[in-house]
């Protein structure tokens, strides 16, 4: 562990002031499930934590009619997956929130933290991408919005500046006859980092695919939105052959690495399998039905 200063501001303005004064070694603290470990294991130089959990703007979540869903960046996972509106309309967020770490982690871990940590294998980012999420950010120079698909720039790297704070994530209301699904593959059933994870979103017009979004994690330096897949299947009749053919595109779309969690060959195979499974489940959900 390193010696760190701890601040608990009660407003965004105050938090940004502390971050600006301390410089890049001051880190925003939400659930702390990543940054406290980084400080303890000295994998990052951290001299101060700015705990934002007492700032009302970043806590809680709500659905406002047609305007969609807003989730405070520091809202813990358990509040998200216990929210009936999210369960009803954004089931892929539940898929992700449910499997982060373990139960104890989910009491603290947040979507904002998972996004800002910028892990290529993050379990919520593919979902946030396929749901066309937007990141609302405030810094010394005011507010800005970033599409989540553009947010991560490399392992542990994002567009967020050191004196900026991710306030909330926004998702538009899902279109009719649309569904989404996230599946992670891990060797165990709990407490693990994805070997591969895939989120798929689909909007159907009868048996025809009106539109789709597919994102994959743990196969590139950042989670990836795979427009090539969506382009390939758009406007076509849904069939298992179509999904098989689309899955073959993964051979050229991703070049995963060899590491302790998986081999390139196994990751490509898993990507194909998870793509087909998430698509089939998303279609089931687009009909208003539940998946197993």
């Amino acid at each position, binding site marked *: 562990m*390193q010696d760190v200063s701890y601040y608990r501001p009660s407003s965004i303005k105050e938090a940004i002031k502390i971050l600006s004064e301390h410089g890049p070694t001051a880190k925003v603290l939400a659930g702390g499930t990543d940054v406290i470990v980084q400080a303890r*294991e000295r994998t990052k130089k951290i001299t101060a934590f700015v705990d934002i959990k007492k700032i009302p703007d970043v806590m809680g979540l709500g659905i406002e009619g047609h305007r969609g869903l807003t989730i405070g960046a520091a809202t813990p996972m358990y509040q998200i997956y216990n929210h009936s509106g999210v369960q009803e309309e954004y089931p892929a967020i539940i898929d992700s929130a449910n499997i982060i770490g373990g139960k104890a982690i989910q009491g603290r871990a947040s979507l904002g933290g998972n996004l800002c940590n910028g892990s290529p294998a993050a379990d919520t980012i593919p979902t946030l991408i396929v749901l066309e999420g937007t990141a609302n950010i405030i810094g010394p120079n005011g507010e800005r919005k970033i599409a989540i698909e553009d947010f991560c720039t490399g392992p542990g790297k994002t567009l967020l500046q050191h004196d900026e704070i991710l306030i909330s994530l926004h998702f538009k209301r899902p279109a009719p006859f649309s569904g989404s699904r996230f599946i992670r593959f891990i*060797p*165990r059933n*709990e407490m*693990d*980092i994805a070997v591969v994870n895939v989120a798929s979103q689909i909007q159907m017009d009868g048996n025809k695919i009106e539109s789709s979004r597919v994102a994959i994690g743990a196969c590139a330096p950042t989670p990836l939105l795979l427009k090539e897949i969506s382009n390939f299947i758009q406007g076509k009749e849904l069939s298992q052959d179509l999904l098989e053919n689309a899955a073959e595109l993964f051979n050229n779309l991703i070049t995963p690495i060899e590491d302790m969690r998986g081999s390139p060959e196994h990751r490509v195979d*898993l990507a194909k*399998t998870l793509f087909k499974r998430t698509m089939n489940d998303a279609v089931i959900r687009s009909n208003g039905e539940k998946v197993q």
Partner: protein
Amino acid sequence: MVSTQKKADKTYKVIGTRPVRPDGLDKVTGRAKYGADIQLPGMLFGRVLRSPHAHAIIKKIDTSKALALPGVKSVITHKDLPTAADIALDLGETTSNMKWLCDKVLAAEKALFHGHAIAAVAAVDPHIAEDALALIDVEYEILEPVLSVHTAMDKKTPNIHPNMKTVDMIARFQAGEPSKVQINNVASILDLELGDLDAGFKEADIIIEREFETGTYHQGYIESHNGTAQWNENDEVTVWLSTQGHFNARDVLSKLLQVPMSKVKVIPMEIGGGFGGKIPMYMEPLAAIMSKQTGKPVKMHMQRDEVLLATGPTSATYIKVKVGAKNDGTIVAADAYLAYESGAYPGSPVGAGAASMFLPYNIANLRAHCLDVIVNKPHTAAYRAPGTPAAAFAIESIIDELAEKLEIDPITIRMHNAAEEGTRTSDGRLAPASLAVKELLEEAQATEHWNAELSDPSIGRGIAIGAWGNAGLESNAYASINSDGTINLNTGSVDIGGQRASLAMQLAETLGVDYDSIKPQVSDTDSIGYTAVTGGSRTTFASGIAVVEVGNKLKEQIIDRVATFWEIDASQVHYGDDGTLNGPEDKSIKFSGIGKILSRTGGTIQASATVKPNTQVATFGCHIVDVKVDEETGKVDILRSTALQDVGKAIHPAYVEGQIQGGILQGIGMALYEEYYYDDKGILKNASLLDYRMPTSYDVPFTETTLIEKPNPGHPFGVKGVGEVPIVPPLAAVANAIYNAVGVRPNILPVNPRRLSVLLKEKNKK
């Protein structure tokens, strides 16, 4: 959920019940004192600098900047260790050589594995000690790491220890003279032989030869290693630590620190798991030396990554086995070649694995060629039935294949070859007494699980058995009777798995008193006689014998005192099973009234006993497991798990079942999930519990248990050691279940999704 106990005929009052453990309340409320709870005035905190390289010459260590950091009180390197004499100490389950031990606790000329201790710092707080580590300059000359037994034994690979000679092992744990065959990086060779191998194979109708590999597995105890040392001005050293054997710790510290044994006092704290891994010591000598230098107590506590990097896991193995059988299933010959990684220093459990793998069977012609191989990985330590899970994986996989090829039921073929009284073992000795292989297999055959239908073609069922011997070794026990009729019981056995309860129950049964009236305690090295480690499945067995002997001695004295009190002859006093003493003319006194009599007849009575039992038995376990295989991803899910085991006599059946369930869980971890992942430079990439994957409660279902009680003739209540054998069968049982489900035989464990998907792809190509 099923828990079955096949009762022994004799009935007891206390034995066989399931009381709460005496240490339970303190443990669940957090009041129990573990090593991390030690706080002493003026205490310093120690940390260790570890090698970032797997194999490197240490050219220079400059500690001056670290020493100059405010708050840093001591920085030590290998040079600060008292000269290490080259003396072997018998440590029960493992052999420790002082020279190797000195080098292991602080590297001398070379760093021999990633995580090898290079220097240690003591400072006024742990953060400053960590900061100081970064200020120690070490100049390394990086050498090519040796990372597998095959590379290590290659003629082109230099010896990691240039002066080491390959020696012949006389017995499993005893090194002999230099061998005629010198193999690079092989510390020792052991050959076990029985019968005529060539003649045996000539009789065979079918011969199967297969190669197997298993990974490096860590014991995964919850509590990380810790130790606090206080070196007084009069050269008396007190050490508080988490250990499986505080007397061994005392003896090793005395030799390593060159302090007389009488001046070292070791106080065992509560222990949060060991499984064999808390027999060796790592930081305690460093804490002691830094305490000597500073005059302050020094506390050291490993982080989890240090536990994985630098303590002793079990050996990764390469095993080749050839088995010949007749068409009727009779195994006529078996030949095994076992090369076990010992890590940076000699001492893998290859001999134990080789001896145990054939123990369940009666095979007339046997050979096991065992090699103990040095590699640039942490020095291996004992881990629950050391060396045997890997060896059993090999033989039990081949027997499953034999059964399939000969179209014989897997239990029937095992029954046909089962060892029984009079069978010779691989080292030519008679099989241990009271062996229960046939009883075990009969019970397995009768389980509901074995006979249940498989509901889905992707589900497979596997079975395997395994063996492990009990250690005897020395135990001491002492008891005294309080004036209120309660009894203080002191032993030298650290309580890892409920030993306070199992020993108190044996004393209560002997004396005919309630379990609650016994107050068991673990005594430090100054307070009771030498007692060997809690390990080797020995404590409830061996320390149990000592406790029963203490009970019998107390009974004799009680009879004498009561006779004195009643003014009759001792032969007229009858000590009843319920602890009531009766004499002529309706004279009667309950045990609770004894205290008053004692105070009027000379005071408290006490008794002690030392035992070193020679009667050693082996225990046998069986695992039946159902798995479901996802052929698209290679993932295996455990659906159902049943374990059967001969336990001799279950003193506390719930704790026996817990031992079995825990062992099964660890065995499944070895089969499917766990392994050290090294890169090609020998850097351990998964030194965390995130990526060193132990199974969680989501991965392994409740294991149903059947306890078979075939009494051990060498123990007054028939106890056999139960703790280790359950880890032996699951590796092969899971592999056999996978074959049953999808038709591929895993020969490398863990068969994680990546490995299984490769096997499945090969199958689908055919």
